[in-house]
């Protein structure tokens, strides 16, 4: 109980600080930060999979499903409340992940990665052909409302930013509690030694399924958020390069922290924005150099900075004994 209160307290404090900062930020940065939260959510799902020893190169599928489900609900059925739309996006992503999980949870390593990517490309191909929902151009989504309040063009970015920050804080806190729980520790153990975990009485298949569905929910949430941040949804959400970028973010963030992925996503978005503006023909080069530097100097990602600090203060599990 104490840990739950502490984690949610820290999340609330962090959210309050970032929301306060948001009021002083220019619109372009609010938009960039909101989009970064969307990507951070998908990356956090990949982190959940990485903790179980798997990397998905197809999270774009659930990202796209979340974006299309919430976007269609808003544009075709007139549902405009962002909270309902986010819930629908997350649910749709989780539902598709749950349907796919019995198949994909049987695979490991490169086979898991390739199968996940193949499935996302199947969706891309299907959506690009279905002209009723925009084909390869996709479709525009209307501006959302916030508990019935329509803030107008000027304030929508700020309102969406506030929602994104609250969502990021809530999801980071829930994932922190899950990662630190008994089942979270078993997921880590599965990454290390599946045979042993099975011989202790746990099902590695179930662990993988649970993490996979969680990653689907998070990607769906990210898709819904970014669909409304961009005001447009298209099949490129499911393209393999979208999934690859999020793996990039997850590696930058590392799996030690649930906050680091959001920081990593923001850094990537900023590097992309600035290098795209000043070096439009070679921004990928800058992104690549940046990733190389992180891999060399922080091989376990930004989150290892937190973990190192925590390690100095309280060595590993001994922290509880000394508290």
């Amino acid at each position, binding site marked *: 109980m104490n*840990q*739950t209160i502490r984690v949610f307290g820290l999340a609330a404090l962090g959210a309050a600080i970032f929301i306060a900062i948001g009021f002083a930020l220019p619109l372009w940065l609010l938009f960039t930060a909101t989009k970064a939260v969307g990507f951070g959510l998908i990356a956090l799902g990949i982190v959940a999979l990485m903790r179980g020893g798997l990397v998905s190169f197809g999270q774009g599928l659930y990202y796209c499903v979340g974006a299309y489900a919430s976007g269609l609900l808003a544009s075709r059925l007139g549902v405009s409340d962002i909270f309902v739309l986010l819930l629908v996006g997350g649910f749709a992503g989780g539902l598709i992940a749950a349907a796919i999980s019995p198949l994909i949870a049987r695979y490991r390593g490169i086979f898991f990665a390739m199968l996940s990517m193949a499935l996302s490309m199947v969706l891309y191909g299907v959506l690009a052909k279905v002209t009723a929902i925009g084909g390869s151009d996709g479709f525009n989504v209307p501006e959302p409302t916030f508990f019935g309040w329509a803030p107008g063009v000027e304030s929508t970015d700020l309102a969406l930013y506030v929602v994104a920050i609250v969502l990021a804080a809530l999801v980071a806190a*829930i994932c922190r*509690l*899950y990662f*630190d*729980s*008994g*089942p*979270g*520790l*078993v997921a*880590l*153990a599965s990454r*290390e*030694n599946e*045979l*042993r*975990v*099975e*011989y*202790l*009485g*746990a*099902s590695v298949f179930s662990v993988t399924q649970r993490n996979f569905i969680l990653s689907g929910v998070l990607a769906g949430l990210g898709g819904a958020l970014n669909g409304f941040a961009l005001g447009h949804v298209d099949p490129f959400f499911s393209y393999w390069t979208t999934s690859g970028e999020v793996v990039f973010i997850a590696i930058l963030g590392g799996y030690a922290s649930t906050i680091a992925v959001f920081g990593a996503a923001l850094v990537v978005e900023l590097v992309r924005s600035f290098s795209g503006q000043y070096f439009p023909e070679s921004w990928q080069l800058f992104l690549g150099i940046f990733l190389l530097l992180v891999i060399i100097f922080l091989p376990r990602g930004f989150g290892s900075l937190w973990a190192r600090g925590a390690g100095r203060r309280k*060595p*590993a*599990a*001994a*922290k*509880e*004994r000394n*508290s």
Partner: protein
Amino acid sequence: MSAVVLEVKGLMKSFGALVAAKDINVNVTADARLSLIGANGAGKTTFVNMVTGYLKPDAGQVLLDGKEITGLPPRRITRAGVCRSFQIPQLCETMTPLDNILVAMGIAGGGGSLFAPAHSTAAIHGAEEVLARFGLESYADQPVNELPGGVRKLIDIAMALASRPRVLLLDEPTSGVSSEEKFPLMDRVMAALEGEKAAVIFVEHDMDIVTRYADRVLAFYSGEIIADDAPDEVLSDPAVQKYVTGTAR
């Protein structure tokens, strides 16, 4: 004499033309300290693997407390109460011994809530108690992959014991351990098992270990049990001396 906890009836297993288990029948009582001996390829590990679900027998039955567990997946056999350690310790290498034990205890306790901390004070105290029984307290917070072989063996056994087994199978607990360390290691294991209501079955090649720690011995040869009795009786059996210990004159 305590009750029979594990019954093995007519167990058969072949790998192509090689018969690894031929009509194996064994009853194991709840307080047994049973050693399996035999040359390499005699069928000891095949027996352990069939009882623990790693291999599915071609025929025969394995019963735990009268309930059939034949051919179930390892995790279900473990949950039923049959746990094992491995010849090569199967550990979570980058985690600490404490975390390894916490994983084992957490799974044995039903996995725990999705949001209840794995490192709660109560859980840590429980894991520390298990480590203390094996004399491993001083290693609790070191990564497993930095620990010596004998310590790793003990952690492997401690993890199996943390699952609260009714039957504990130890696959060559002293293999890969120096001759000076073998007896201290087995002393630790047997001391840790004191008070546990678990039958212990261990595969062993060192006959000094067998005579000191087992109260019953099964000798395997070519997939068959050729002797089943007290250690002194089995080790003086001419067939065992000829095919297993190589001491026949």
